[in-house]
């Protein structure tokens, strides 16, 4: 099993989700994060003084999927989340040793 962590634009979440809907994936977990990369922040002001907000809100989508599904999921996410502008985000893939479904105690692939 692999964990796919995609850091995407908040407003792309619904598109990404739709793109993954038909896959038989078991679930996903979302976290609100703040990111900093090539993309720089916006300028805001407070009582006449401007300042840079250097971290922008992003959504981290985490999905643990079967090894066989990794490529397809990545491809779908890339297609759905891309705008071509800086700030589109990144995908990181790492190995997962075990998975357990708390409700049933099922393990690994059948737990996803």
């Amino acid at each position, binding site marked *: 099993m692999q964990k796919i962590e995609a850091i995407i634009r*908040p*407003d792309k*979440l*619904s598109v990404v*989700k739709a793109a993954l809907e038909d896959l038989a994936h078991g679930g996903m977990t*979302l976290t*609100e994060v703040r990111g900093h990369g090539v993309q720089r922040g916006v300028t805001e002001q407070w009582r006449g003084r401007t300042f840079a907000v250097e971290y922008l*809100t992003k*959504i981290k989508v985490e999905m643990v999927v079967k090894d066989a599904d990794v490529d397809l999921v990545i491809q779908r996410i890339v297609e759905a989340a891309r705008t071509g502008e800086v700030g589109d985000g990144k995908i990181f893939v790492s190995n997962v040793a075990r998975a357990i479904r708390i409700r049933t105690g099922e393990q690994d692939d059948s737990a996803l």
Partner: protein
Amino acid sequence: MKKARSLSLAALIGGGLALLTVGVASAQTPDEIQASLDDLTAALDTMWLIVAATLVLFMQAGFALVEAGFVRSKNVTNILMKNVLDACFGAMVYFAVGFGLAYGAAEAATGFYGSGSFFMSGNTDYATFFFQFVFAATAATIVSGAMAERTKFSAYIVYTVFITGLIYPIVTHWIWDGNGFLTAFRDDPMNGVGVVDFAGSTVVHSVGGWAALVGAIMVGARKGRFVNGQVNAFPGHSLPLGVLGVFILWVGWYGFNAGSTLGMSGGLAEIAARVAVTTTLAAGAGGATAMLLSWIQHGKSDLSLTLNGILGGLVAITAGTATLEPWAAIVAGVVAGFIIVYGVALLDTLKIDDPVGAVPVHLLNGIWGTLAVGLLSSEALMDNAYGVTSTWGILLGGGTDLFVTQLVGIAATAVWVVLASGILFGIIKATIGLRVSEAEEDAGLDVYEHGMEAYPEFTGGRDPFATLSGTGR
């Protein structure tokens, strides 16, 4: 005359230049002068009632904010809904039956309940109705705070209707209606004085407070609050809401207390001004005392208790606001501060769960305020406000008549409200049920009862998931 009035209306609205005095004809004969004086007097007193009632209605917002700020965010929509509906249903119910039970003066009326004026039939004293309604709404609103975070919404609707329509009006009749068996306004008041409750420490706050206590006991404590002999704190989710609510209540209290002169003419203005001062001093003393006590106890000053302390001081001065001298108002407020700090702790010991402190604020201080009249009222002010010269505060040498009468008022109210609300909550419990399910309590009443979160966005401050949460069905 009516034509004239409508013309004057036209003139006032239409001609930007028209002087405001055109409404008054050139009265010169003694009779005309008298008519003008009567009109001005009525206008002035009515205006005061309307302004004061508007301030009291604003207190609904204050209660809503204090209660919302003091509960957890998962139950905020629910407590807001209840406060909103207290006003909405309250208006209907008090119009239909409540006002008549309180002040109806038909033949059927006795010293125990009024009759007549239902649906305002045959009664055109709208200013009085408006002023009395806002007090009724206040009494009803006290209960929702004590029963917050676990009471069924349908149960709430039933009990609020009965409190506004039946339980509260009866006590009003007893103590404030000229026919009431306990009132100071009868020709032959009890012990020559009757119960002195100027603006409602007993009539409004204790009534709400007793019902709140009975309700809090019958619905039981929130899950997880008292576990294995340990008392867990459930901090309220927003102190700014709580503080704003308390300030709004404080401001509204000038309508509540000073407005209870019911007029400004005939020397009442002087009483109203003094009432404003005693109200201010008691509020300040209550807040300062609770703050200092909490600081001494825990080494840190506690804003939540300070807020309760201010409200406690306000409730405590409500009965005696016209008959206590300023120094006595400060005494009343200081004692109120103690009552808050120890009263909150006492409820914890008794395992009674009152999320917002309605019982210490409204019940305990409502009782204390009513007793304070019997202890601290000055001779001169009892005469000035009630025309009573035979008895005044026991501690100032005024004998026991007043104090004993106050005790009777407290006791009568306690018996009636505890019985009536006990039966009411008992019936509700046996039929539609009083309490939500455990699952609902865990998840919060907002989603289960109303399908609506108070802050539906992820962080309360920015919503990356907004585009999703709105997928329609």
